[in-house]
């Protein structure tokens, strides 16, 4: 048995499609179904931030965005960067403001990613206060609880609609493959076959 854990959100369809490319088909989950089986494969659907936790604690493989991994300090292996789920993590401020990062000392930053945010400002020698939110981050400056936000940006439409502008890209994001460190050893051959197949699919321009 090989177990996968995939995030329920925006990456789910793309991840299922990618797995189909390497010959592993799971039916699209119906209703509130969270565990799906297909022969010797098992799929669990979880919240994105829980995917690395499941893989660290014994699920064999997972797919999640690089943002989640950087925030979580994942302790398993990350054998592949996957060619989907591409976006960026950026710093954004209200459109009418004009301020450089070096002048943001003491700023309040709303984000789902306090660790990445603190690391980013530390690398600029700036101390900020982070406010952890779980969604609708772009509303925080609007209601005055934050001076800026660090959030995922795809097309930039949501930022624009909420009166924000992107001033710095913190990192590029794509989906990554996670493997449990012990599964990699115990199921060495079986997992390598899958990883090599994925490498081939990516190399052939997926």
């Amino acid at each position, binding site marked *: 048995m090989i177990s996968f854990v995939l995030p329920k959100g925006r990456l789910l369809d793309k991840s299922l499609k990618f797995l189909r490319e390497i010959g592993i088909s799971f039916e699209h989950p119906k209703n509130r179904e969270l565990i799906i089986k297909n022969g010797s494969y098992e799929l669990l659907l979880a919240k994105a931030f829980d995917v690395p936790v499941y893989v660290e604690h014994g699920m064999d493989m997972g797919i999640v965005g690089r943002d989640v991994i950087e925030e979580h300090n994942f302790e398993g292996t990350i*054998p592949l*960067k996957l060619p989907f789920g591409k976006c960026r993590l950026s710093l954004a401020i209200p459109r009418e403001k004009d301020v450089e990062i070096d002048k943001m000392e003491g700023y309040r930053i709303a984000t789902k990613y306090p660790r990445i945010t603190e690391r980013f400002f530390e690398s600029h020698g700036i101390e900020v206060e982070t406010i952890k939110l779980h969604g609708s981050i772009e509303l925080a400056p609007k209601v005055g609880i934050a001076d800026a936000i660090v959030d995922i940006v795809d097309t930039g439409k949501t930022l624009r609609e909420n009166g924000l502008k992107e001033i710095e890209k913190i990192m590029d994001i794509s989906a990554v493959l996670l493997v449990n*460190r*012990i599964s990699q050893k*115990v199921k060495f051959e079986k997992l390598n076959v899958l990883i090599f197949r994925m490498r081939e699919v990516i190399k052939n321009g997926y």
Partner: protein
Amino acid sequence: MKDIFSTSRKLSFVASHLRRVFELWGYQEVFLPALTRYRENIRKGIKIVHSNDIYAVNPDPTSQILESVRDTKRLKLYYIKEVLNGSPRGIWQAGIEFIGGKEMCMGTEIILVAIASLEAIGIRDFRIDIGSKEIWNRTIGKYSSYKKEIFRALILRNFEIIESLPIDDKKKKEMWNLFNFRGRKFRDPKLNGIVEMVKDDRVFIDLGTVRPLPYYTDIIFEIYSPYIGTPIGGGGEYEFNGKSAFGFAFNLNVLISLLDDVVEKGVRNISGVNVV
């Protein structure tokens, strides 16, 4: 609230068996203080300041031992201790250190003690993977300026990192072969010698094996069970005052989670005498 007694019961079961095994193999228990003055070589622990001095609370025992023992020809020590790693939630660790013996013999003995320890507490289904930092250093050779990236690739098991480096294709292929090598024989006398002397089907050479602590010099190994997703323990070879040394530690929190049945069978229920 966490039930401290059920955890203690399991820890006590494991500790008593491990003590017996370690002592049978000639290791002497060392009682390490909770606080040790912080120096650069002290790993893990929590840093606190007292009277203008920085101390580490319950740091990594191997680094604590290396900073605390005076020069000695030969030393065989063991400890059972709670270790902190930057957070107040500790991990119980039991480990041994063998300093100043013959390299191959120490490496073999350490792995045999790990096997004997697990068997003593009733765990027989486990694996030990042995790797070598030196084999990687030799292979990296003239590309040593990329060593950091290459070891990062090993930790993440991400060969794309190596592929993206300006290294010639022949070298990349050599690294790819090492990256995916897992077996019982490799063209390295030290690694082969240890595996041959240990002679146990549960021991493999896996050159993708990595350990998080930086003091290891060559041989490294990881102990794990197919039933649990985190390693039970691990160790390797390091240097102490120019002498070769080997050590390993079990993560007792992980170990006791494998134990439920074993403890129940192993502990006799004597409830005492009820005098009416």
